[in-house]
Protein backbone atom coordinates (compact mmCIF):
# COMPACT_ATOMS: atom_id res chain seq x y z
CA UNK A 1 0.00 0.00 0.00
CA UNK A 2 1.33 3.41 -0.92
CA UNK A 3 2.65 5.45 1.94
CA UNK A 4 2.33 8.82 0.29
CA UNK A 5 0.44 11.24 2.60
CA UNK A 6 -2.08 11.92 -0.20
CA UNK A 7 -2.87 8.19 -0.34
CA UNK A 8 -3.58 8.19 3.39
CA UNK A 9 -5.92 11.20 3.06
CA UNK A 10 -7.78 9.57 0.15
CA UNK A 11 -8.05 6.20 1.91
CA UNK A 12 -9.39 7.78 5.09
CA UNK A 13 -12.10 9.56 3.07
CA UNK A 14 -13.05 6.54 0.97
CA UNK A 15 -13.17 4.23 3.98
CA UNK A 16 -15.36 6.69 5.89
CA UNK A 17 -17.76 6.82 2.93
CA UNK A 18 -17.83 3.05 2.74
CA UNK A 19 -18.75 2.52 6.39
CA UNK A 20 -21.36 5.29 6.29
CA UNK A 21 -19.40 7.65 8.53
CA UNK A 22 -20.88 10.85 7.10
CA UNK A 23 -19.05 13.16 9.48
CA UNK A 24 -15.55 11.95 8.60
CA UNK A 25 -16.39 11.73 4.89
CA UNK A 26 -17.78 15.29 4.88
CA UNK A 27 -14.66 16.54 6.65
CA UNK A 28 -12.46 14.86 4.02
CA UNK A 29 -13.96 16.93 1.17
CA UNK A 30 -12.55 20.28 0.11
CA UNK A 31 -15.15 23.09 0.15
CA UNK A 32 -14.54 23.57 -3.58
CA UNK A 33 -14.57 19.86 -4.44
CA UNK A 34 -15.55 18.90 -7.99
CA UNK A 35 -17.16 15.48 -8.10
CA UNK A 36 -17.41 13.76 -11.49
CA UNK A 37 -20.05 11.04 -11.22
CA UNK A 38 -19.67 8.73 -14.21
CA UNK A 39 -22.17 7.05 -16.49
CA UNK A 40 -25.51 7.94 -17.95
CA UNK A 41 -27.81 7.48 -14.97
CA UNK A 42 -29.94 9.94 -13.00
CA UNK A 43 -27.06 10.71 -10.61
CA UNK A 44 -24.36 11.12 -13.28
CA UNK A 45 -22.77 14.49 -13.90
CA UNK A 46 -20.44 17.05 -12.46
CA UNK A 47 -21.13 18.39 -8.98
CA UNK A 48 -19.28 21.55 -7.96
CA UNK A 49 -18.77 22.40 -4.31
CA UNK A 50 -19.17 20.41 -1.14
CA UNK A 51 -22.90 21.16 -0.80
CA UNK A 52 -23.65 19.95 -4.34
CA UNK A 53 -21.59 16.78 -3.88
CA UNK A 54 -23.18 15.94 -0.53
CA UNK A 55 -26.64 16.76 -1.90
CA UNK A 56 -26.12 14.24 -4.65
CA UNK A 57 -25.12 11.51 -2.17
CA UNK A 58 -28.16 12.28 -0.05
CA UNK A 59 -30.54 12.02 -3.03
CA UNK A 60 -28.87 8.81 -4.10
CA UNK A 61 -29.30 7.27 -0.65
CA UNK A 62 -32.91 8.42 -0.46
CA UNK A 63 -33.52 6.70 -3.79
CA UNK A 64 -32.27 3.43 -2.28
CA UNK A 65 -29.08 3.35 -4.32
CA UNK A 66 -26.01 2.12 -2.47
CA UNK A 67 -22.53 2.33 -3.86
CA UNK A 68 -19.47 1.05 -2.07
CA UNK A 69 -16.28 -0.85 -2.61
CA UNK A 70 -15.81 -4.45 -1.56
CA UNK A 71 -12.05 -4.60 -2.11
CA UNK A 72 -9.53 -1.78 -2.09
CA UNK A 73 -6.89 -3.52 -4.15
CA UNK A 74 -4.16 -0.89 -4.30
CA UNK A 75 -3.60 2.86 -4.03
CA UNK A 76 -0.89 4.63 -5.99
CA UNK A 77 -0.12 8.26 -5.35
CA UNK A 78 2.18 11.13 -6.05
CA UNK A 79 2.08 14.82 -5.10
CA UNK A 80 -0.67 15.58 -7.65
CA UNK A 81 -2.83 12.47 -7.93
CA UNK A 82 -4.11 9.50 -6.04
CA UNK A 83 -5.46 6.53 -7.95
CA UNK A 84 -7.34 3.75 -6.17
CA UNK A 85 -7.89 0.37 -7.82
CA UNK A 86 -10.92 -1.30 -6.38
CA UNK A 87 -13.97 -3.50 -6.79
CA UNK A 88 -17.19 -1.52 -6.61
CA UNK A 89 -20.65 -2.90 -5.83
CA UNK A 90 -23.86 -1.05 -6.62
CA UNK A 91 -27.33 -1.98 -5.40
CA UNK A 92 -30.58 -0.26 -6.32
CA UNK A 93 -34.00 -0.69 -7.80
CA UNK A 94 -32.47 -2.49 -10.77
CA UNK A 95 -30.78 -5.18 -8.66
CA UNK A 96 -27.06 -5.27 -8.13
CA UNK A 97 -23.83 -5.18 -10.10
CA UNK A 98 -20.16 -5.19 -9.30
CA UNK A 99 -16.88 -4.84 -11.12
CA UNK A 100 -13.45 -3.25 -11.26
CA UNK A 101 -13.22 0.52 -10.91
CA UNK A 102 -10.59 3.20 -10.66
CA UNK A 103 -10.99 6.36 -8.61
CA UNK A 104 -8.77 9.28 -9.54
CA UNK A 105 -8.44 12.07 -6.98
CA UNK A 106 -6.77 15.41 -6.60
CA UNK A 107 -5.82 16.29 -3.04
CA UNK A 108 -5.46 19.95 -2.06
CA UNK A 109 -4.94 21.41 1.42
CA UNK A 110 -5.18 17.88 2.82
CA UNK A 111 -8.69 17.36 1.40
CA UNK A 112 -10.28 15.68 -1.61
CA UNK A 113 -10.54 18.47 -4.19
CA UNK A 114 -11.56 16.59 -7.33
CA UNK A 115 -12.81 13.09 -7.93
CA UNK A 116 -13.39 10.93 -11.00
CA UNK A 117 -14.63 7.35 -11.01
CA UNK A 118 -14.35 5.03 -13.98
CA UNK A 119 -16.17 1.71 -13.89
CA UNK A 120 -15.46 -1.20 -16.18
CA UNK A 121 -19.15 -2.19 -16.11
CA UNK A 122 -20.65 1.30 -16.25
CA UNK A 123 -23.58 0.21 -18.43
CA UNK A 124 -24.54 -2.45 -15.86
CA UNK A 125 -24.19 0.10 -13.05
CA UNK A 126 -26.46 2.55 -14.92
CA UNK A 127 -29.15 -0.13 -15.23
CA UNK A 128 -29.01 -0.91 -11.50
CA UNK A 129 -29.24 2.78 -10.55
CA UNK A 130 -32.07 3.66 -12.94
CA UNK A 131 -33.86 0.35 -12.42
Amino acid at each position, binding site marked *: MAEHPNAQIACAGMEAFNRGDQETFTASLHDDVVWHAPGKNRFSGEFRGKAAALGRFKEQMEAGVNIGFTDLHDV*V*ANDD*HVVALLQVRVTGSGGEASG*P*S*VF*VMHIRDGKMAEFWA*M*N*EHQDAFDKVVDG
Partner: protein
Amino acid sequence: MAEHPNIELVRRGYAAFGAGDMDTLKELIAADVVWHSGGHSPLSGDYKGLGETLGLFGRFFEVTGGDMSQELHAVLADDEHAVALLRQHLGRPDGRSYDGNDVHVFHIRDGKVTEFWAFSEDEAASDAALA
Protein backbone atom coordinates in the same frame (compact mmCIF):
# COMPACT_ATOMS: atom_id res chain seq x y z
CA MET B 1 12.29 11.44 -5.05
CA ALA B 2 13.49 9.23 -7.90
CA GLU B 3 10.80 7.96 -10.22
CA HIS B 4 9.71 4.40 -9.75
CA PRO B 5 11.20 2.15 -12.49
CA ASN B 6 7.68 1.03 -13.44
CA ILE B 7 6.92 4.64 -14.47
CA GLU B 8 9.85 4.57 -16.88
CA LEU B 9 8.70 1.19 -18.23
CA VAL B 10 5.22 2.48 -19.00
CA ARG B 11 6.49 5.70 -20.59
CA ARG B 12 8.76 3.63 -22.85
CA GLY B 13 5.76 1.51 -23.76
CA TYR B 14 3.62 4.48 -24.89
CA ALA B 15 6.54 5.93 -26.86
CA ALA B 16 7.03 2.55 -28.57
CA PHE B 17 3.29 2.18 -29.26
CA GLY B 18 3.17 5.68 -30.76
CA ALA B 19 6.15 4.89 -32.98
CA GLY B 20 4.85 1.45 -33.98
CA ASP B 21 8.00 -0.03 -32.43
CA MET B 22 6.88 -3.64 -31.94
CA ASP B 23 10.34 -4.85 -30.88
CA THR B 24 10.30 -2.64 -27.78
CA LEU B 25 6.71 -3.64 -27.02
CA LYS B 26 7.68 -7.32 -27.19
CA GLU B 27 10.45 -6.60 -24.70
CA LEU B 28 8.09 -4.82 -22.26
CA ILE B 29 5.10 -7.16 -22.36
CA ALA B 30 5.16 -10.64 -20.79
CA ALA B 31 4.60 -13.68 -23.01
CA ASP B 32 1.63 -14.72 -20.87
CA VAL B 33 0.11 -11.24 -20.54
CA VAL B 34 -3.66 -10.86 -20.14
CA TRP B 35 -4.85 -7.71 -21.91
CA HIS B 36 -8.37 -6.57 -20.96
CA SER B 37 -9.58 -4.31 -23.74
CA GLY B 38 -12.47 -2.44 -22.13
CA GLY B 39 -15.90 -1.44 -23.38
CA HIS B 40 -18.32 -3.14 -25.74
CA SER B 41 -16.83 -2.69 -29.19
CA PRO B 42 -15.59 -5.26 -31.72
CA LEU B 43 -12.12 -4.74 -30.18
CA SER B 44 -13.24 -5.30 -26.57
CA GLY B 45 -12.48 -8.48 -24.70
CA ASP B 46 -9.69 -10.39 -23.03
CA TYR B 47 -6.61 -11.05 -25.12
CA LYS B 48 -4.36 -13.78 -23.76
CA GLY B 49 -0.66 -13.87 -24.51
CA LEU B 50 1.70 -11.55 -26.33
CA GLY B 51 0.63 -12.78 -29.77
CA GLU B 52 -3.06 -11.99 -29.29
CA THR B 53 -2.18 -8.65 -27.67
CA LEU B 54 0.05 -7.53 -30.53
CA GLY B 55 -2.72 -8.68 -32.86
CA LEU B 56 -5.11 -6.37 -31.01
CA PHE B 57 -2.68 -3.46 -31.41
CA GLY B 58 -2.61 -4.21 -35.13
CA ARG B 59 -6.43 -4.12 -35.24
CA PHE B 60 -6.42 -0.71 -33.52
CA PHE B 61 -3.99 0.63 -36.14
CA GLU B 62 -6.15 -0.91 -38.86
CA VAL B 63 -9.53 0.48 -37.79
CA THR B 64 -8.13 3.95 -37.06
CA GLY B 65 -5.97 4.05 -40.14
CA GLY B 66 -3.19 5.05 -37.74
CA ASP B 67 -5.17 8.06 -36.45
CA MET B 68 -4.70 7.18 -32.82
CA SER B 69 -2.73 8.84 -30.05
CA GLN B 70 -2.27 8.92 -26.31
CA GLU B 71 -1.24 12.10 -24.57
CA LEU B 72 0.05 11.16 -21.13
CA HIS B 73 -1.19 13.41 -18.34
CA ALA B 74 0.46 11.51 -15.49
CA VAL B 75 1.97 8.13 -14.75
CA LEU B 76 2.00 6.78 -11.20
CA ALA B 77 3.43 3.52 -9.97
CA ASP B 78 4.31 1.32 -7.07
CA ASP B 79 6.02 -2.08 -7.07
CA GLU B 80 2.93 -3.88 -8.34
CA HIS B 81 1.00 -1.44 -10.51
CA ALA B 82 1.48 1.46 -12.84
CA VAL B 83 -1.39 3.76 -13.72
CA ALA B 84 -1.44 6.09 -16.72
CA LEU B 85 -3.88 9.00 -16.83
CA LEU B 86 -4.17 10.03 -20.43
CA ARG B 87 -6.06 11.77 -23.16
CA GLN B 88 -7.01 9.17 -25.74
CA HIS B 89 -7.68 10.04 -29.36
CA LEU B 90 -9.18 7.56 -31.82
CA GLY B 91 -10.10 8.64 -35.31
CA ARG B 92 -11.86 6.63 -38.01
CA PRO B 93 -11.53 7.11 -41.76
CA ASP B 94 -15.34 7.71 -41.92
CA GLY B 95 -15.03 10.77 -39.64
CA ARG B 96 -16.08 9.23 -36.33
CA SER B 97 -13.76 9.93 -33.43
CA TYR B 98 -13.30 9.66 -29.70
CA ASP B 99 -11.37 12.08 -27.52
CA GLY B 100 -11.61 11.42 -23.84
CA ASN B 101 -9.95 10.83 -20.50
CA ASP B 102 -8.86 7.25 -20.04
CA VAL B 103 -7.09 5.42 -17.26
CA HIS B 104 -4.85 2.49 -18.07
CA VAL B 105 -3.80 0.13 -15.30
CA PHE B 106 -0.78 -2.13 -15.68
CA HIS B 107 0.16 -5.04 -13.48
CA ILE B 108 3.93 -5.37 -13.66
CA ARG B 109 6.14 -8.25 -12.61
CA ASP B 110 9.89 -8.70 -13.22
CA GLY B 111 10.01 -5.63 -15.43
CA LYS B 112 7.21 -6.76 -17.76
CA VAL B 113 3.52 -6.00 -18.10
CA THR B 114 1.57 -9.09 -17.06
CA GLU B 115 -1.95 -7.68 -17.08
CA PHE B 116 -3.66 -4.57 -18.44
CA TRP B 117 -7.05 -2.91 -17.91
CA ALA B 118 -8.45 0.16 -19.66
CA PHE B 119 -11.12 2.47 -18.27
CA SER B 120 -12.80 5.31 -20.18
CA GLU B 121 -14.55 8.29 -18.67
CA ASP B 122 -17.13 7.96 -21.43
CA GLU B 123 -17.17 4.32 -22.45
CA ALA B 124 -20.29 4.72 -24.61
CA ALA B 125 -18.54 7.36 -26.72
CA SER B 126 -15.44 5.22 -27.08
CA ASP B 127 -17.60 2.22 -28.07
CA ALA B 128 -19.45 4.31 -30.67
CA ALA B 129 -16.18 5.38 -32.30
CA LEU B 130 -14.98 1.78 -32.51
CA ALA B 131 -18.27 0.11 -33.48
